[in-house]
């Protein structure tokens, strides 16, 4: 099933030490159900799901506890049966250390499933299948947690050339996809088959870095067993970040999908192997996404992969791995792109592919930053063909517009540039800083534009009210006789010339037009809505804006 095929190269890339061996010596292990599960509602790109349960309620394993908010969102489920003890703000697995709404469950130990039923996607419309996957909480498990149902859409042509399964797993230390492919290749392929049908894809290419011979062999065996010639397992050269969705698509097909465009428009779609597995679970077994494989590695005596229920505190995972005494940090993800956690109490979520324990010995603090010598090393390794030092220069000077001109938003934050920089500049930190400033500014600008519109509308409304009052008053005065006479005298005094009259008419007409335009533009502001309705509309709008903002940074849809 694996043919010798022409592979393509992506620009740049680096070869850090891989450290993958330690965690692949043993098979995937289960974890005991923890004493408390803290399940954040917002675990994917898109709108935060609405809680469906309240404190005191009993939930079953796989029961939906958070409902997708609109289509760009994804549901969350209870990972075991038990009692909801609270729906409250808890610390998130996020570098900021801030809290967000979580459902806290006290497991009852029975691990009792909801009624599970496979979903007959062949007899369902594509939209129904997508809705089903959204409600099953299936999101990209490569780390980007983009809702998968949004990507299972063949786009304009209604069919694709290639479905790429991403098993490259290029980040050092992480082996969760590796072991998943070794042990559960068959289910992955079944999931891929479902995806392929939904996308009407011609072929399936499974890209695996050639430093994982066992996984390649296992997947080849599974593909042989499946007996489908359209499925090909392809060993790709080991070079970080070959596992970036765009880089892998490039390596396998030669196609470069530009930033901000849909890969389906180029005839290809890419999913992580874990996502294919989860899709199979959801459709064939009727099991929503409630757990995933997580690598625990780094500064531990026994690195290993676990199948972990979402909501399990990271420390429960680390403890059996014998962390070394000098461990002082927990990183979610790998050493190149991972994020420091605020503590080891935060829960495992859908984005947690790896819990990396760190120490100063393992990840020494970088030597002090020096000036950029424009050596161009960073540009040589950038997989997005950027000029990192130029972006750095402008980000550092807070010239964000210029940084954007140098394609800041094409940067995938892979860290290659910072990895090679001889001046030890934390380049990616500058890009993260610049990006979040730019996003914040966009949010502010939108809010300001909205405020301006609302303010101008209010001025117009006040003016209209004034006019109405004036007109009423005028009518009244005209009715009174003496007053009418006085008014007549008044009217004659400033006797306007016809030109003036014409000018006034023109102005009036202009104002009328402007008003009409305003009202067309803001139908929700018409006063015949009840305040409640208005409030609701406004709240929804605000939320929409927020979702748009949140979705924007991630819409590159890396899986």
């Amino acid at each position, binding site marked *: 099933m694996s043919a010798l095929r022409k592979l393509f190269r992506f620009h740049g890339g680096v070869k850090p030490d891989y450290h993958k061996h330690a965690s692949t010596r043993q098979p995937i292990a289960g974890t005991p159900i923890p004493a408390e599960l803290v399940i954040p509602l917002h675990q994917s790109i898109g709108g935060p799901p609405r809680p469906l349960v309240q404190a005191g309620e009993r939930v079953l394993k796989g029961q939906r506890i958070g409902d997708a908010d609109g289509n760009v969102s994804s549901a969350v489920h209870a990972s075991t049966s038990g009692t909801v003890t609270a729906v409250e703000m808890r610390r998130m697995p996020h570098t900021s250390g801030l809290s967000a709404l979580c459902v806290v469950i006290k497991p009852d130990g029975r691990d009792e499933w909801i009624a599970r039923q496979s979903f007959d996607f062949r007899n369902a419309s594509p939209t129904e299948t997508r809705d089903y996957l959204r409600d099953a909480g299936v999101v990209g498990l490569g780390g980007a947690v983009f809702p998968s149902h949004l990507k299972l859409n063949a786009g304009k042509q209604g069919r694709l050339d290639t479905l790429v399964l991403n098993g490259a797993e290029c980040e050092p230390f992480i082996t969760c996809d590796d072991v998943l492919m070794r042990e559960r290749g068959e289910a992955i392929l079944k999931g891929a088959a479902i995806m392929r049908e939904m996308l009407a894809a011609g072929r399936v290419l499974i890209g695996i870095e050639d430093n994982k011979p066992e996984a390649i062999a296992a997947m080849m065996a599974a593909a042989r067993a499946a007996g489908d010639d359209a499925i090909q397992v392809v060993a790709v050269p080991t070079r970080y970040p070959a596992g970036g969705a765009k880089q892998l698509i490039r390596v396998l097909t030669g196609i470069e999908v530009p930033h901000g465009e849909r890969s389906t428009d180029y005839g290809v779609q890419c999913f992580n192997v874990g996502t294919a597995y989860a899709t199979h679970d959801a459709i064939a077994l009727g099991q929503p996404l409630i757990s995933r494989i997580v690598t625990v590695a780094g500064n531990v005596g026994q690195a290993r992969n676990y199948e972990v229920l979402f909501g399990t505190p990271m420390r429960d995972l680390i403890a059996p791995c014998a962390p070394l005494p000098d461990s002082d940090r927990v990183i979610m993800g790998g050493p190149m792109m991972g994020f420091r956690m605020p503590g080891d109490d935060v829960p495992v979520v859908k984005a947690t592919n790896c819990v990396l324990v760190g120490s100063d010995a393992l990840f020494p603090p970088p030597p*002090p930053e020096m000036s950029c010598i424009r050596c161009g090393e960073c540009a040589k390794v950038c997989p997005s063909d950027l000029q990192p030092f130029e972006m750095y220069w402008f980000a550092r000077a807070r010239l964000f517009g210029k940084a954007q001109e140098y394609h800041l938003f094409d940067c995938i934050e892979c860290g290659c540039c910072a990895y090679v920089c001889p001046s030890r500049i934390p380049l990616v930190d500058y890009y993260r800083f610049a990006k979040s400033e730019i996003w914040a500014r966009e949010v502010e600008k939108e809010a300001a534009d909205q405020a301006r519109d609302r303010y101008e509308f209010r001025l117009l409304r006040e003016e209209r009210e004034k006019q109405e009052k004036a007109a009423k008053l005028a009518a009244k005065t005209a009715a009174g006789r003496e007053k009418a006479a006085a008014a007549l005298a008044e009217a004659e005094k400033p006797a306007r010339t016809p030109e003036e009259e014409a000018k006034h008419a023109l102005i009036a007409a202009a104002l009328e037009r402007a008003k009409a335009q305003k009202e067309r533009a803001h139908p929700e502001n018409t006063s015949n809505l009840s305040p409640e309705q208005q409030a609701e509309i406004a709240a929804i709008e605000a939320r929409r804006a927020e979702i748009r903002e949140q979705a924007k940074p991630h819409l590159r849809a890396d899986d």
Partner: protein
Amino acid sequence: MHNSPYFLKPASVRSVMLRVLLALLPGIAAYVWFFGAAVLVQIALASVTALLAEAAMLKLRGKPLMLYLGDGSALVTAWLIALTFPPIAPWWLTVIGVLAAIVVAKHLYGGLGQNPFNPAMVAFALMIVAYPSLMSQWPAVGFTDFAPQLNAIFGPRQLDAITMATPLDALRTALHTEEARATVAGVLGSSASFGNIGGKGWEWVAAGYFLGGLYLLQQRIITWHMPAAFLLTLLVISGAFAAFDPGHFAGPSFHLFTGGAMLGAFFIVTDPVSGCTTPRGKLFFAAGIGLLTWIIRAFGAYPDGIAFAVLLMNIAAPLIDMNTQPPVFGHKDKRGSAK
């Protein structure tokens, strides 16, 4: 605490600079062999001055001293100055040159990474304008006696015995003063300073630099673009003119193996800070230097034009960079490499 990436490649500015210094050694060895040990004195003098000046400037600007002093960039500048100045130049010439490079060209512009001009070339240009005669007194090939050379550097100067015009200088003077009668072939044949390929002795020094350049290429400290574009331009244009009028224009081998051509190609033109960084930009930049060098050599008032050529192109570098941005991932349609 720092953020990802948590892994960093064990590379530093210091290791880059040290390898550059290492790459200079073969050329220096040939230099000493043919022209005596005076150049070593100059290197030591320039190094000490550069380090002191660097330390003083860092202190003044409130920068962490050891961090930047240890980066080795001042040493590279110092060595390049010592290698481009005449080895028997009086000590103060070198000192002033180094001070000009470190204090003015480097730190007044904001220190390493911010200087728009190549510091060593600023020093060279400044000194050759200010002291044209001192900057043209070169030791004669073969006179490797150390004592008179040392005397020339530190003591009262008796130069006639040990100096000789550099090949470039000799050629230029001959062609300029004897106008119609002198031909390149005649001049080259007549003078002791011309060797088989380029200048006598100089060709070996150039070969040493070439070797060092190959090492830098192998270490991926420099890319092929700049040396190739520079040398090729020089080769093509000098070849063309020599073919067209061999009487008045020296051929490519002479141009490539005399003066600072090889040193320039691998060590000066390739200075990353003041040059271009995009691959195409590097080609334009170095080709521009090659062209200007040849023009200045052939028609200008100074014997070697690399310094001025480099400074002129330094000015153009940001503009070239801006207009040679390589296409970003996914935006390569114009070149047809994607979709």
